[in-house]
């Protein structure tokens, strides 16, 4: 049995994707870390859109193909169908993330999903934004920014339909600068006013196609970040991209997400920002620079990142081929653990790090493997949405009595044939536990594995994935 796990490989796979399964390790163990990075990038160019088996429809469809106002009934139908669609989109995306070779592409999509944070009640628009982000996730940041700014979901979320020449709405321009590009302190209130004017008239038709309404657009001269001209929204974004501050802001965000949130190194971030700027915002350059750097594999940057709930769920699913029978189960898990896809807490996205952990969510995380591997049942009740109907919300909660799921452990049963509990615990902790095993009493776990059931493989997996160590990547 292989016991000397390559920590660098584990680190790379956990950060650039969602897990290093033992079969990944068997495939990659002879290669250099640079070859492993190239493989991840190679796999990432091969990706497909998130889609459902059926077509999603625009509001126009629900309005019977008519332009103009929808009736109350039509609106209800759209809302109802969108909720159904979105649950399936959620489950599908989880499946894509857990795919064999899709780790890097989907990890990047998840990262930008939190960066271009948006809540969109119309499922078609939410799906469009998600696919635009996926397509650009390792491409050019400037292209992605401009594409996202033309998405119906983002224009609606940031109130740009209300941004008209006669009555500008500054929300869109403000968030583009504060959260999507350059960050606070690098623009003035005047820049926001003039930026907002440039975005006036940016909206979409009822099929979600981007359009500029000339009569609502303020075509006058604007002064923005020291430039003066008859600017449109695209000009504004190009000016923002011409500022080094934007490259620094994005590089810092990527560093904190992929490397170290608790103890960032400002010098490294500055160098990353410079490199990103010189590459003209090529995201693949930035990410290669991170994954291939020596400092990425510095012990202080390894095994000390708290997995997000999505990473936790996807990692389990990928390593143990878990099937969730029902979208409600995946959604319920996300709710109790505090991260629901397509529902960032606000436009600034998920705060991450220790924000994921409180005394309740930690206990839930540590009990989830038991319900998945052993009983397949877990009593969870989750907060109702603000928009749940009154009957549902009156109870205050939705209770998921049974979280049905199945795990396929064939690979592990084979791998651990005739192995002792100690050997299993040893091997599993090497592959699954990012911070290593120095704090773990392996004998204790092996004893528990033996006493829990005759299925030692299953018990050992359940126990190892229940550890605090398993919460880190």
């Amino acid at each position, binding site marked *: 049995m292989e016991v000397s796990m390559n920590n660098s490989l584990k680190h790379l796979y956990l950060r650039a994707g969602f897990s290093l399964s033992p079969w990944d390790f068997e495939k990659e163990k002879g290669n250099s870390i640079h070859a492993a990075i190239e493989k991840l990038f190679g796999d990432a160019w091969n990706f497909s859109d998130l889609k459902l088996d059926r077509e999603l429809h625009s509001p126009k469809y629900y309005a019977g193909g008519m332009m103009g106002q929808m009736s*109350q009934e039509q609106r209800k139908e759209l809302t109802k169908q969108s909720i159904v669609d979105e649950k399936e989109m959620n489950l599908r995306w989880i499946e894509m993330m857990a795919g064999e070779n899709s780790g890097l592409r989907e990890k990047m999509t998840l990262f930008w999903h939190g960066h271009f944070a948006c*809540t969109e009640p119309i499922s078609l628009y939410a799906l469009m934004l998600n696919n635009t982000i996926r397509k650009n996730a390792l491409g050019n940041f400037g292209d992605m920014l401009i594409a996202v700014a033309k998405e119906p979901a983002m224009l609606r979320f940031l109130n740009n339909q209300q941004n008209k020449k006669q009555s500008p709405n500054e929300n869109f321009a*403000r968030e583009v600068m504060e959260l999507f590009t350059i960050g606070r302190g690098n623009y003035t209130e005047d820049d926001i006013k003039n930026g907002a004017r440039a975005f006036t008239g940016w909206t979409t038709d009822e099929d979600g196609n981007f359009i500029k309404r000339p009569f609502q657009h303020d075509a006058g001269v604007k002064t923005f970040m020291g430039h003066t001209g008859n600017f449109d929204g695209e000009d504004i974004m190009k000016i923002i991209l011409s500022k080094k501050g934007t490259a620094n802001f994005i590089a810092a965000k990527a560093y904190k997400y992929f490397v170290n949130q*608790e103890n960032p190194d400002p010098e490294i971030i500055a160098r990353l920002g410079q490199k990103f700027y010189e590459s003209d915002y090529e995201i693949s350059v930035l990410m290669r620079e991170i994954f291939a750097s020596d400092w990425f594999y510095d012990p*202080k940057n390894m095994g*000390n990142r*708290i997995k997000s709930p999505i990473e936790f769920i996807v990692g389990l699913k990928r390593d143990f081929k878990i099937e969730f029978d029902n979208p409600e189960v995946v959604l319920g898990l996300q709710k109790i653990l*505090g991260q629901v896809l397509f529902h960032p*807490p*606000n*436009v*600034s996205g998920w705060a991450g790090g220790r924000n994921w*952990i*409180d*005394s*309740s*969510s*930690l*206990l839930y995380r*540590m*009990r989830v493997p*038991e319900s998945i*591997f*052993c*009983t*397949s*049942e877990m*009593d969870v*009740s*989750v907060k*109702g949405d*603000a*928009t*749940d109907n*009154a009957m*549902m*919300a*009156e109870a*205050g*909660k939705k209770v998921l009595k*049974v979280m049905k*799921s*199945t795990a396929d*452990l*064939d690979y592990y*049963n084979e791998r651990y044939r005739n192995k002792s509990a100690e050997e299993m615990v040893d091997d599993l902790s090497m592959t699954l536990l990012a911070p290593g095993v*120095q*704090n*773990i009493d392996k004998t*204790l776990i092996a004893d*528990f594995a033996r006493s*829990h*059931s005759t299925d030692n493989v*299953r018990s050992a997996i*359940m126990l190892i994935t*229940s*550890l*605090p*160590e398993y919460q*880190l990547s």
Partner: protein
Amino acid sequence: MRYTALGSTALLVPGFLKGFERLSSPYLGTIENAFGPSGNKKILVVVQLSGGNDGLNTVVPYQNDVYYKLRPIIGKKANEVLKLNDDLGLNPGMTALKGLFDDGKLNIINSVGYPNPDRSHFRSMDIWQSASESNQFVNTGWVGRYLDSNCQGAQKPYSAIETDGSLSLAMRGEARTGIALESPDAYFAMAHDKFIKAVSEKGSSSLMNRTDDLLKEDNLHYLYKTLAESGSSADYIYKTSRVYKSTFEYPQGEFGKNLKTIATLIVSGLDTSVYYISLGGFDTHDQQNQRQDKLLKDFSEGIGVFTDDLKANNRFNDVLIMTFSEFGRRVSQNASNGTDHGTANNMFIINGNLKKPGVFNEAPDLSNLDEGDLVYKIDFKDVYGEILDNWLGADTEKILFRKNQSLGLI
């Protein structure tokens, strides 16, 4: 082999479902017994009405022509409302609250809101819970920052408890968070797993003695610390909750059940300063009245029993209840006999010993609307400030990043 639910591993059925066979806990012997009926300790109970409660049909301006003009169908009739004064009356279902008002145990604050109001449920709830300005994004909540402040009453891992499966933003601080629990028993069952306990003890003993420089950034240490605190809190809360068993009959449903849990913990003498409870379903875009009336009745009856319970145990003077909702609703009814998302709203403050009970400020001005919405007169952060300063004895400025304007409320 494919493994399906409830197969052959009967031995593995967890504590979750099996109840409390293994009640003897390693923690129980060692918990601090520093608690006990802490007579003077001030307690805050935050009641969140989720979905945007329509304030104008809660506290009805029954003499106002504009009100009836803009709400010809859903307006509450003057002869139905429970009259508070010459202008305002409570929704007819709220008899228990009317009783509290008549006894001088209720404050109604009108027109509470914030500048540049946001009409999204999620965003506005964020603003209320984080106590931020509407153009700020803050990842901590106001109760969480109270915990961070580490002032007297905020120092325990269980200083703030939310009766729910997951924790609201309001309860999250930078360094400290509250506890979310559905009931003391359920929380105890979750924390009380042999394996988790054993791991917690082993891990703690090897990690807790560390004093190196990187400790603050070490997330594994943070996880073990959180785990150890959860375990001891779960034991302490469970054990303490056995001190008092309420015989009061609370309304059916989750809200009543959670109020009963809170009363039990308060009367039992749990050393907790803030409780957080939610009642949802107020997003009444259509056929508002039948729904909202029922919700307000549930709310009022629940609070009525809760305060009776506290009174009977001499704790009503120590407990201050504050209600809020993420926004009020449009003044005009919509085409479906409902109301859409609005802005300013009223808040209730309830306590056994109020300084100035009654209607705190003038009724909302319906003749001076901002695009059909009420204009706020009191910033909700000033209400929080008042409570933090004058009730919880905390340093408001540190928690809210602004000085307490002193409304003279408490």
